[in-house]
């Protein structure tokens, strides 16, 4: 398969993730969307890296994965924190700050 196929796949996944973040009501759902987006980026990196024959792309992916994990952990902690006070994980309800 050519590079283009990989990239297109990544683009599709990326946009799916974006769609998820924009449309999900649940904060966790939004997080899942973000994971998809990051996942798409990783495909991109690895694909470029492989087709360029340069391993730094893979390194990039490694970093990205690690950071993502940290990010997700922090994000979920915030969600849980909010959950404790608001009794809801609905992002729609988290709109005390606005205007």
């Amino acid at each position, binding site marked *: 398969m050519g590079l283009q196929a990989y*990239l297109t796949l990544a683009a599709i996944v*990326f946009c799916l*993730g*974006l769609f998820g*973040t924009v449309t999900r009501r649940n*904060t966790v759902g*939004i*997080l899942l969307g*973000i994971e998809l*987006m*990051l996942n*798409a*980026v990783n495909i*991109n*990196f690895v*694909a*470029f*890296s492989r*087709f*360029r024959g*340069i391993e*730094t*792309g893979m*390194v*990039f992916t490694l*970093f*990205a994965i690690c*950071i993502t994990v*940290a*990010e997700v952990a*922090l*994000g979920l902690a*915030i*969600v849980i*924190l*909010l959950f404790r*006070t*608001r009794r809801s994980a609905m*992002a729609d309800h*988290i709109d*005390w*700050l*606005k*205007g």
Partner: protein
Amino acid sequence: MKVMLGLGGLMAAVLLLGLFKPAVPDRRCGWLSLFGLIGLAAWSFFVRPGESLFSDAFVLDPLAIFAQRLFLVSAAVSVLATLGLSGDGFARRGAEYHVALLASLLGMFVLAAARDLVLLFVAFELMSIPLYFLSGFQKRKDIASEGALKFFLVGSVSSAILLYGFSFIFGVTGTTAMGAIPGALASGQILAKLGLVLVLAGVAFKIAAVPFHMWVPDTYEAAVTPFVAWLSVAPKAAGFIVVFRLYLEGAGSAGYMWVPVVSALAGLTIVAGNLMAIPQQNVKRLLAYSGVAHIGYMLIGIAAMSANAAGMVLFYLVAYLFGNMGAFFVVQAVGSGEETDSMSGYRGLAQRSPVLALSMLVFLLSLGGIPFVAGFWAKLFIFKAAIDQHMYGLALLGAVLTIVALYYYLVLASRMYIDTPEKGGRVPLAAPLFLAILFCALGVVVMGLYPEPWVRAALNATAGLFS
């Protein structure tokens, strides 16, 4: 590099101090961070450019050093103001707070000098993730976690977009070295353009350009004020450094392709930021929106695409640092005294606490771009840079919206000066906070009265970008 290591050491020290003195309500961590930061800041002024490490992935050029000083000073001032916060809760968890802040600072520090995409990305994330944490630091306040959540979610999406952009850049250049970007762009590779556009969106989130700004008011309103003061300046500055590195440095004539979009972003940001600030009753939100508008002005400097203009963006950042942080500090003082960030808390402030009111006035005037305070020169230089590039429309738009900005600044001023106070007595003001306000006021006034050295420093820092 040594300063950076010092910063890492400081972070470790604070962490250790926090580990060994857990949950003790004192401010030792804060003082340690403060003195450490002051020391480092002082040290940073003796650093000379030229250091280059990790096969040119980390280069200390004048721009990096300028930015690092800015980060250090702003962090020091913020920590100083933090020491003025009242309440045990904060002091008890001081170690976490300061470690996170120092970590974020470390990220900015590296970011400023990074010439490699991997390093840049990691530094970017190192800067961002503690910010999410810090913005939700007052976890007992339920809006704090809401602000943090919004910041986090939008930030994560933006990180993803940024990283996606990086992937394309890497794909086109075949290397993670940033030096290869201009060449790729110049060769007209569409994916290079695509990558840079995606990165631009990611960075636009960080600097809060419209329409990537929407997290700003919510997060600012929710977070603890001294941190917001810093959040409103340092990460923005870092974002601009990224812009310099990726879009201006060595770009040559290829950089001109960014002029229309950046101009549009700038115009949109100025207009929307200023207009949305008008109806705000919460001063923190007002400053948040006004901060968004300021980003727009700085973007004009970017759009002008010249070393001069870039220098003026740096100058603007410094002026903005003093003015905006100072304003937030006053908000902090009034907020802790009156237990409200609403405009009504400012009624008759001039008669209750004249010094506080005067400092606020000075900060507001500086933000509004009035002569004899720093903000005036900043706006002026930006407009001049725009006019030099024959961007009259943008300069005019900026000038006209400055009037709108002055409207809401003056409304706040009228609360302080024209309204009669509802209650008597001074607003209590902690000594460290007072010092921080004084420092900012001094900065604003000194810059306003004698901008020459600052201008020279800023121009010096960006001189290399276009060579």
